[in-house]
């Protein structure tokens, strides 16, 4: 499938950048499209103006299951928000509620300043890309992309022009006559994207759009969608269960669990400062070790682990008693001699080469071995399983949570 991709991602956006300055499209509240600039000069291109979305106290129950348990979130115009969570966390229900396919039991949905809570999906003027693209199999690419324009009463000739421009935007110029079945997965994905932006909606909703693609293509499409979103200035709300996808693509991530918004923030802030053990465990890899709090030392909280080691991490105010420390594998430093200050003595269990990095597993008298990621294992050359090692980390890099 990867080989079938017709164009590199960088090339596909060049015509867009040129055309943006020539033609500007504006969406007026009464949903008429007005064009400024010259119609004859150059190809016209899709240009969008992002709209803000706000969800206010949305609740949705399915029987006794609380799919949405009072979710409020603000998405700024032009922002890329990832809704991240395990299956059943309510992220898809939230997206479907914004799209209008689910009605909230309580709460309001406001898009671009307009309360759309009671609106049918076809009256909301949102773009949506589905998991398996949902291209109309009996229509060729041009008619698929022209479909939303047709629904808006735009004439055939105009539809053709704008469909061609949208195809160019996603790097598939000249593919208008193909049927969806004649395209690769990645190409279908691009057509679905073109169809969802050709009518210049203020907001684009994406429901795990990359999950059906193979790994290489998925990683390329991540960057391409991200770049396209920045160029077009559209607001994107993107549902995913893939934490890496969320980290790479989003300006801001909202982590959901059991119908609730657990934490929201920039990818780095969430990764480095998770609000609780769920976020720490879901976003990236981490080691959880249980222990008992032994007070504060400066800004750092001290914890006595079940193996007797005394280590430190950032602690929320007032944390006492049973607690749990979370340390990411790449934040742990491995020493072959006992260093100054606090350290945890462990025994080498296994060194696993994983390409760009190396995984070191260390036995520490805990339920599970400690997982460490180092750039190079050169320092461990000659060490055998069972040899002593000392682990340290900056107390700012570890997080303490109530157990």
């Amino acid at each position, binding site marked *: 499938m990867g080989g079938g991709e017709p164009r590199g991602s960088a090339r596909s956006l060049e015509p867009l950048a040129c055309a943006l300055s020539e033609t500007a499209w504006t969406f007026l509240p009464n949903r008429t499209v007005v064009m400024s600039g010259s119609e004859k000069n150059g190809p016209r291109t899709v240009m969008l103006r992002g709209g803000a979305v706000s969800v206010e106290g949305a609740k949705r129950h399915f029987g006794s299951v609380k799919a949405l348990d009072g979710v409020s979130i603000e998405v700024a115009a032009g922002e890329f928000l990832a809704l991240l969570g395990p299956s059943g966390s309510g992220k898809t229900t939230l997206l479907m509620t914004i*799209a*209008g*396919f689910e009605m909230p039991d309580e709460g309001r949905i406001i898009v671009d300043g307009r309360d759309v809570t009671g609106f*049918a*999906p*076809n009256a*909301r*003027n*949102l*773009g*949506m890309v*589905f*998991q*398996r693209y*949902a*291209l*109309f*199999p*009996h229509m060729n690419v041009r008619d698929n992309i022209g*479909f*939303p324009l047709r*629904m*808006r009463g735009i004439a055939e000739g105009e539809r053709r022009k704008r469909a061609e421009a949208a195809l160019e935007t996603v790097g598939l110029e000249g593919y208008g006559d193909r*049927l*969806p*079945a004649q395209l690769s997965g990645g190409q279908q994905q691009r057509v679905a994207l073109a*169809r*969802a932006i050709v*009518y210049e909606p203020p907001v684009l*909703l994406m429901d795990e759009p990359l999950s059906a693609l193979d790994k290489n293509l998925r990683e390329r499409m991540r960057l391409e969608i991200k770049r396209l979103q920045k160029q077009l200035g559209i607001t994107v709300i993107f549902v995913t269960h893939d934490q890496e996808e969320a980290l790479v693509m989003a300006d801001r991530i909202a982590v959901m669990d059991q119908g609730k918004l657990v934490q929201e923030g920039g990818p780095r802030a969430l990764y480095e400062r998770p609000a609780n053990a769920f976020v720490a465990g879901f976003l990236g890899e981490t080691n959880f070790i249980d222990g008992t709090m032994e007070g504060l030392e400066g800004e750092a909280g001290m914890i006595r682990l079940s193996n007797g080691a005394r280590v430190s991490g950032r602690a929320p105010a007032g944390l006492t008693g049973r607690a749990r420390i979370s340390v990411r594998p790449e934040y742990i430093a491995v020493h072959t001699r006992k260093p100054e200050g606090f350290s945890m003595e462990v025994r080498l269990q296994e060194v696993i080469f994983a390409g760009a990095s190396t995984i070191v597993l260390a036995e520490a008298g805990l339920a599970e071995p400690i997982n460490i990621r180092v750039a190079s294992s050169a320092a461990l050359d000659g060490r055998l399983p069972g040899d002593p090692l000392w682990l340290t980390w900056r107390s700012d890099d570890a997080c303490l949570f109530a157990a």
Partner: protein
Amino acid sequence: MSAVLSRKTFRPRLATLMTMLVVVFLLLPTIIVIPVSFGSEKYLQFPPKDWSLVWYRAFFADREWMEATRLSVIVAGLATLLATLLALPLTLVFARGKLPASGAIKALVLAPMILPHIVTAVGLYITFARWGLTGTVFGFVVAMAVLALPFLFLTLSAAVSKLDPALDMAAASLGASRFATFRLVTFPLLLPAILAGMAFAFITALDEAVVSNFLSSSISKTLMKKMFEDIDFDVSPIIAAVSTLIILATFVLVGVAQLVRTIQTRRMGKV
């Protein structure tokens, strides 16, 4: 090892043999009427001594045969339309899964296919006789629609269940109303299945004999009723000519329906 190999080579041969036997036993008695119909004898004879079209000419020249044929074709056509108009919304509602007592409704729709025709025939006769509908085109159409409905329902249900529900959602998100979605997405995608179902329904309504026997009157009889009467009185090879025409019509209808389906599958992959 050799046992495995020999079994592998044996299986396709057995399958081919079985298929050929089925074809011979099921199809041969049916198509034997074709050569018989082209004879010129006054009796059904196989093989015919010479070849001619006399019995076809006789069929087309006979006013009573023509009227029975006309009635049957009109009835089958209208019944097919009526059954389609009922089956299409019904299957779409069933697919959305929001219908109360859907099990009961499904059983009711499929009943005429499962029950012996004689039971349906007696039931319809008693009811229609009271309403004065026996021997009327309207009565025939309603009865045949009832009999054809299960075929359309099953064909359409299978096709609807294969439709990706995300297509409906995609259309709605792109601004299409429910009706526009039906007209531009659902209906075109279901069209081959609708045509196939209609072909089956038409053939079912055309060659149904038991119910039409009950509902026919002395002045208005269907083609099947006329054929039964003819066999009773004099066994003329017109019967063979009529049978051949019906076989031809069936092959053409089913063939066209299959062709439309094949073309759709070729163009769009498995939908």
